[in-house]
């Protein structure tokens, strides 16, 4: 399969007055046609900065320092601004956590929907109106003709997020990037939006990158998962591999930290807190919280160890030499 989007060694930093904050420190992954790829991780792990880098919306003092973002072979980091605008208008669209950041409070929903079409298509006014109505219907908004003439404040939080999704779909993009699209919503509304996104992916074979901190959302939505920690990907694999056979101690810790159904056993908390990325640790970013950490982990970051199914994790414990050494110690 040919990936529709390929990220190679992406590095993004913020140059603050107290020094360089290396938010994304060499991230590589690919998005396959028609899949939902989940990125999970805690605040500050670099998941949002990664997709903002893809969308070319990193604001100073931040910038992409290195790497490649290949959309169908074109590197988004080197092409002209004009071409980027074309791609962002037609091929890749983003849905943000807070719908109000993407909606203009003083314009009607209809004019905002049609604005993107006007900029990127040659549709006539009547065609644009028809398409806007169809889009609202596609995101399950009732009486779309009336709704088009209303302002964002006349919509509830869940409805606004639907409108934002409709706007993202306006020019029929191939890739949808959703950054915590349901975090600000209540669970019953979250459920509606997630089901809508899944339908869109299935029926229109959109490729979706879904960022979330909720492992439940990942289990429900994604085919493949990237786990990020301290600005790097620490593990990636299919949903089943990540949930049923996690390899990285951080992923294992996250899954264990959640309460198990019908159990009152003490939660296995991960001690400590994530590292500051202003002075990123030399070795594995998780080493200071990892119960299996060795001396080596503090000084050197391992590369990925992959199995035949493409399940990869960046942990020294998976190194054949380390495994052998541990095995010998166990026998003594």
């Amino acid at each position: 399969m040919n990936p529709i989007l390929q990220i190679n060694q992406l590095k993004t930093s913020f140059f603050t007055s107290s020094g360089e904050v290396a938010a994304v420190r060499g991230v590589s992954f690919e998005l396959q046609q028609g899949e939902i790829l989940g990125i999970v991780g805690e605040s500050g792990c670099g998941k949002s900065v990664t997709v903002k880098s893809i969308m070319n919306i990193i604001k100073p003092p931040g910038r992409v320092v290195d790497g490649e973002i290949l959309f169908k072979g074109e590197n988004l980091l080197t092409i002209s601004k004009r071409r980027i605008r074309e791609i962002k208008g037609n091929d890749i669209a983003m849905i943000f956590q807070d719908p109000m950041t993407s909606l203009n409070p003083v314009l009607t929903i209809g004019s905002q929907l049609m604005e993107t079409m006007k900029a990127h298509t040659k549709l006539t006014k009547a065609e644009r109106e028809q398409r806007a109505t169809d889009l609202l219907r596609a995101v399950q908004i009732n009486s779309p003709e009336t709704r088009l003439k209303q302002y964002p404040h006349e919509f509830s939080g869940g409805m606004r997020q639907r409108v934002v999704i409709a706007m993202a779909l306006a020019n029929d993009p191939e890739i949808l990037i959703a950054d915590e699209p349901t975090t600000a919503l209540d669970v019953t509304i979250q459920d509606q939006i997630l089901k809508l996104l899944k339908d869109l992916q299935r029926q229109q074979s959109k490729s979706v990158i879904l960022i979330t901190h909720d492992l439940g959302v990942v289990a429900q939505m994604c085919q493949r998962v990237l786990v990020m920690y301290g600005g790097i990907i620490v593990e990636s694999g299919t949903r089943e591999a990540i949930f049923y056979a996690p390899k990285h101690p951080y992923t294992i810790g996250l899954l264990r930290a959640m309460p198990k159904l019908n159990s009152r056993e003490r939660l296995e908390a991960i001690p400590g807190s994530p590292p500051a990325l202003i002075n990123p640790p030399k070795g594995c970013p998780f080493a200071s919280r990892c119960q299996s950490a060795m001396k080596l982990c503090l000084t050197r970051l391992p590369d990925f160890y992959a199995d035949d199914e493409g399940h990869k994790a960046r942990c020294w414990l998976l190194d054949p030499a380390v495994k052998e050494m541990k095995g010998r110690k166990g026998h003594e």
Partner: protein
Amino acid sequence: MSELLRVENLKQYFPVRKGLLGKVHHYVKAVDGVSFHIRKGEIFGLVGESGCGKSTTARSIIGLHKPTEGKIFFEGQDITALTGEAKRMLYQEMQMIFQDPYASLNPRMTVREIIAEPLRAFGMQDASAIDEAVYTLLERVGLNKSHATRYAHEFSGGQRQRIGIARALAINPKFIICDEPISALDVSIQAQIVNMLIDLQKAYGLTYLFIAHDLSMVKYISNRIGIMYLGSMVEMGDSDLIFEKQRHPYTQALLAAIPIPDPAASDARQTVALQGDIPSPIDKPSGCSFRTRCQYAMPICAAEEPVLQAVEPDYYVACHLINKS
């Protein structure tokens, strides 16, 4: 177990004023006739989506709002009528931990000052005794002496929540209201704080009102749970039983909407998303508040508001479906 807190038919309406003279236009019925009790030494979970009135209920209990109607009893005493010194003394028994550890700590105060404040307010004057108490409290919440001279912004979210907990514990309260204490924290930190809250509860025989929207965590921590919708209690009982029986249609919909962190279990579940939005508490539907989204709604649901009734000992549901049969 004896009762520590009793809320009786609590109503909390907020007037919406309009026009030049500020005439009351209508009311936001944030809490509309809620009754429940919490026993000594138990953790009572209050669950519901935004606007259901769970936080308003908590704020009424701790005296931040004066109830429009209804009574709140603490250790048998009606506390809604308390004023002045008597009301102030009540806070020696009752404390609150807030959701946002960034907003609830004064950025200009050191950790020592933050924790010492309630101690001073309730009569501790001797500087060395205060220092000693602050250090003990810091250790109790997993911090240490060296943290006392620092400011809140120097700490991570989880550590700030620990400081907030130390402040709440300072004057040895009997009852602590935890208003979404883990919602703003990362998953790996949530377990740390929940474990600590449980340890403290056991060690000091505390009673908690635990408010959250993360149902799996509420189920884990609580002995009993109350589920609220649009200002009313719809179901209340033992937390394991609620998850098992799910008698109210809203409880069913709420539990069905929580994503399960297990791919196979998630795939096996065939649920239909609950339609529509939560109605506004300004313009509540007649009868049962949930009827506009309920797949079982009958004519009686619009005509009559269902009463919270015991369907078995210590298990209450407010639904015409159940109350009729």
